[in-house]
C-alpha cells in the first residue's frame, strides 16, 4: 500500500495525471540495456543476471527490460517510463546512463536505481562495477607465455579508465613472464560492432600479433583469429565458449547474477541502501572461463595459482614497483594501488607505447 501512495505522489510531483499501478505482492525489477540481449557479450551477461533473478524469486518478482537503448535523452525516457510502469528497482547497465539515471532518480525518490560502472550516487542511486582488471592480469600472464612473435594485439573500445586499467593490467603481467612482449593497441571507439572489430583483429594479425585481447563485446575477433589460425584469443564479458579450445583459450566472464539477486532481496526486505560496489574474482563477480588444453599444463597451473591468490586477497594486480609511461614512479616496491587512482586511471604504465587518444 505504502509503495502505491508513494509512487502516486512521485507521479503527482511530476505533474502527471494517472495512477501508478504497482502491485503490492510482487517486486518489479527493470533493466536498461545498451546493446541487444543477443550480443553474446556485455548485455548478454546482464540478461543472464535478469533471468537468474526471475528464476531465484519466481512469482515474487516481475522483470522488464529494454534493449539497445541509446545513451543520453532516449535512456532518460526509457527509465522514466519504466519507473512510471511501477518498477521498484531499475538497473541501468552502461556508463553513459549516469546523468540520466541521476535525473530520473530525482523525480522518483521511492524507486531504487543501480547504475553500472559510474561514479555518481544519490540516496536512491547505487553504483556497481566489477574488477575486470583482475581477470586481465591472468589473461596477460597466459598471453605473455603463449606469444611466439612477442606481439600482442589489443582491441580497445573507448579511452576510459576501465579500459585503460585492463590494458595496464594485461601488459604488466605479460611483461613479467616475457620481457620482450610488445602491445599494439587499436581504439575501435565502439563497444559492439562486429565489422569494425573484425577489421581491427585482422589488421593486428597482419602486423604479426599472435594473441588478440579484446575489450569489445562481439565474437568477431574470435572468428577472425580462427580464420587466421595460430592466433589465440580470450572471451570478453561472456565465455564465448563456441570458439574453444582454439582460438579462445580462456575468458573473462561478468557474473552479475549474485549481485542482482542480493539487491532485489534487499528491496524486498526493505534494507536497500545506496552504496558503491566494486567486486572482483573473490566474490565471484568476475569469472575466469575454462583454460583450454591449447595452453600448456604449467602455464595453466600458474594462471590458476594467480587466480586463487587474487581471489584470496593475497595478490593485487597493481603491486609496485610500477612506473608510469613517462618513467615517473607510481607505486613503490610492495605498494598497492588505491581504488581512487584505479577508478580514474588515465595513464599507461611504463613500457607501453603510443598515447591514450584524446
Amino acid at each position, binding site marked *: 500500500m505504502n509503495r502505491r501512495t508513494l509512487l502516486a505522489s512521485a507521479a503527482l510531483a*511530476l505533474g*502527471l495525471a494517472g495512477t501508478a499501478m504497482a502491485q503490492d505482492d510482487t517486486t518489479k525489477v527493470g533493466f536498461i540495456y545498451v546493446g541487444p540481449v543477443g550480443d553474446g557479450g556485455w548485455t548478454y551477461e546482464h540478461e543472464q543476471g535478469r533471468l537468474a533473478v526471475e528464476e531465484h524469486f519466481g512469482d515474487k518478482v516481475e522483470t522488464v527490460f529494454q534493449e539497445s537503448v541509446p545513451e543520453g535523452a532516449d535512456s*532518460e525516457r526509457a527509465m522514466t517510463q519504466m519507473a512510471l*510502469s511501477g518498477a521498484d528497482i531499475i538497473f541501468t547497465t552502461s556508463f553513459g546512463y549516469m546523468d540520466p539515471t541521476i535525473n530520473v532518480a530525482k523525480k522518483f525518490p521511492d524507486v531504487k536505481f543501480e547504475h553500472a560502472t559510474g561514479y555518481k550516487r544519490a540516496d536512491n542511486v547505487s553504483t556497481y562495477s566489477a574488477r575486470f582488471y583482475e581477470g586481465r592480469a591472468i589473461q596477460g600472464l597466459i598471453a605473455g607465455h603463449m606469444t611466439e612473435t612477442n606481439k600482442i594485439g589489443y582491441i580497445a573500445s573507448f579511452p*576510459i*579508465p576501465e579500459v585503460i586499467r585492463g590494458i595496464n593490467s594485461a601488459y604488466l603481467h605479460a611483461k613479467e613472464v616475457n620481457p620482450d612482449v610488445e602491445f599494439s593497441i587499436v581504439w575501435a571507439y565502439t563497444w559492439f560492432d562486429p565489422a569494425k572489430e573484425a577489421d581491427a583483429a585482422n589488421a593486428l594479425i597482419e602486423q604479426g600479433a599472435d594473441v588478440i585481447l579484446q575489450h569489445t563485446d562481439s565474437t568477431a575477433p574470435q572468428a577472425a583469429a580462427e580464420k587466421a589460425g595460430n592466433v589465440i584469443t580470450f572471451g570478453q564479458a561472456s565465455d564465448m565458449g563456441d570458439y574453444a579450445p582454439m582460438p579462445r583459450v580462456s575468458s573473462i566472464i561478468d557474473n552479475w547474477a549474485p549481485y542482482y539477486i542480493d539487491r532485489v532481496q534487499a528491496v524486498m526486505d526493505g534494507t536497500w541502501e545506496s552504496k558503491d560496489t566494486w567486486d572482483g574474482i573473490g566474490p565471484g563477480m568476475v569469472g575466469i572461463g575454462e583454460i583450454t588444453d591449447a595452453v600448456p599444463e604449467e602455464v595453466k597451473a600458474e594462471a590458476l595459482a594467480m587466480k586463487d591468490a587474487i581471489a584470496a586477497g593475497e595478490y593485487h594486480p597493481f603491486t609496485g614497483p610500477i612506473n608510469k609511461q613517462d618513467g615517473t614512479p607510481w607505486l613503490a616496491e610492495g605498494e598497492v594501488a588505491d581504488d581512487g587512482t584505479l577508478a580514474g586511471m*588515465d595513464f599507461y604504465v611504463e613500457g607501453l607505447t603510443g598515447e591514450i587518444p*584524446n
Partner: protein
Amino acid sequence: MIHLVKRPQPSRVWTAVTPLLAVVLTMIVGGIMFAALGKPPLEAIRTIFWDPLFHPQFAAYSRPQLLVKAGPLILIAIGLSIGFRAGIWNIGAEGQYIMGAITGAAVGLAFYPLDSFIVFPLMVIAGALGGWAWGMIPALLKVKFGTNEILVSLMLVYVAEAWLASVSSGLLKNPEGRGFPGSRNFQQYDAGANTEVIAGTGMHWGVVAAFVAVIFAYVLLTRHIRGFHIRLTGEAPRAARFAGVNPGRVVIFCLGLSGALAGMAGLFEVSGPAGQITIDFNSGYGFTAIIVAFLGRLHPVGILLAGLLMALTYIGGELAQLMLGLPGASIQLFQGMLLFFLLATDVFTNYRLQFGQGETA
C-alpha cells in the same frame, strides 16, 4: 497481364493517399510479424500508436516527449527537403548535426561559468554555423570540382563522428569528470541550457525553431522567387538555366541551409535533452530525418506530420518493448516497413495499373 502505364501527370490523389496507405499496410504487415513473434498483434499496434497519446499511466509523460523526439527530426527534415526539391541530395545531415552540437557546445563551455542571457543565443548561432560549414564542404566541392554531394556528405558523417569521439575525450572533456569522456552537463549550467519554454510541455527552444522552420519553408517554397528557382532546378534543370538560375548558387544555398538547420538541431539537443557531448551523442536523427522528409512528401506541413508520426512510432515502440516485451529489432523493422511501403505505393503516383493487353505501340 498487368501493365504499369506512366501517367501524363503525377496523380494528386495518390500523392495524398500513399502516406496513409503506407501506414495502414505497415500496421497490417507489422501486426502479422508481431503475431508471428507470439505477441498479440492488435495490442501491439495499439501500444505503438494509441498508448503514447492516451494511456492513463504514460500519456501525461509521453505526449510532451513526442515533441522532444519530433523537434530535431522536423528541423533537420525541413532543411533536407528543400535540397531534395532541387535534386541536391544531402545525406550527411547526421554529420552536420554532430558538428553543430560540437561548435555550439564549445562556445557554451568556453563561457562557463558566466551567467549571462547572451550565452545561449551565441551557442545557437555557433551551432548553426558549425552545421553550415560542414555542409559547405560538399557544396563547394560540388560547385568547384563536380564531386558527388551524396558521397561526400555521407563520408563526412564518419569524419564528424571521429571529431565527436576526439573532443569528448579531449578538448571538451569535463575537467571534473574523473577522467571519463564527456563534456560538462548543460542541464547544470543554466545560462547555456536549452530549457522548456513552457514547463512540462516538452516545448524546448529546438521545438520552437522546428515550428518556425516549417513556416519559413512554406513561405520560401510558395511565395519566394528563390523557392521557385529551387523547385524549377529540381523539376526542369535546363529550363531553370534558361530562366537565369545559377545552379552553383542553388547548391550552396541548399546545402548551407540544410547544414545550418541540422547544426542547430544538434545544438538544441546537446544543450537540452541530451545535456552533454559524449562519444556516442548522435543517435541517428540525421538519417531518420531523411525518412521523415520523404514520408512528408517534401512538403513543410507533411514533414511536420511525418515527424510527429515518426516520434510516435519511437515512443510507442519503446512502450511496446516495455509492456509487451517486444524485441527492439522488431520495432526498427516496423519503422523500416513504413518507408518501404511508402516507396512501394509511391509507384502509383506516377504510374497506373492497366489490366489485360497493353495498347498496341
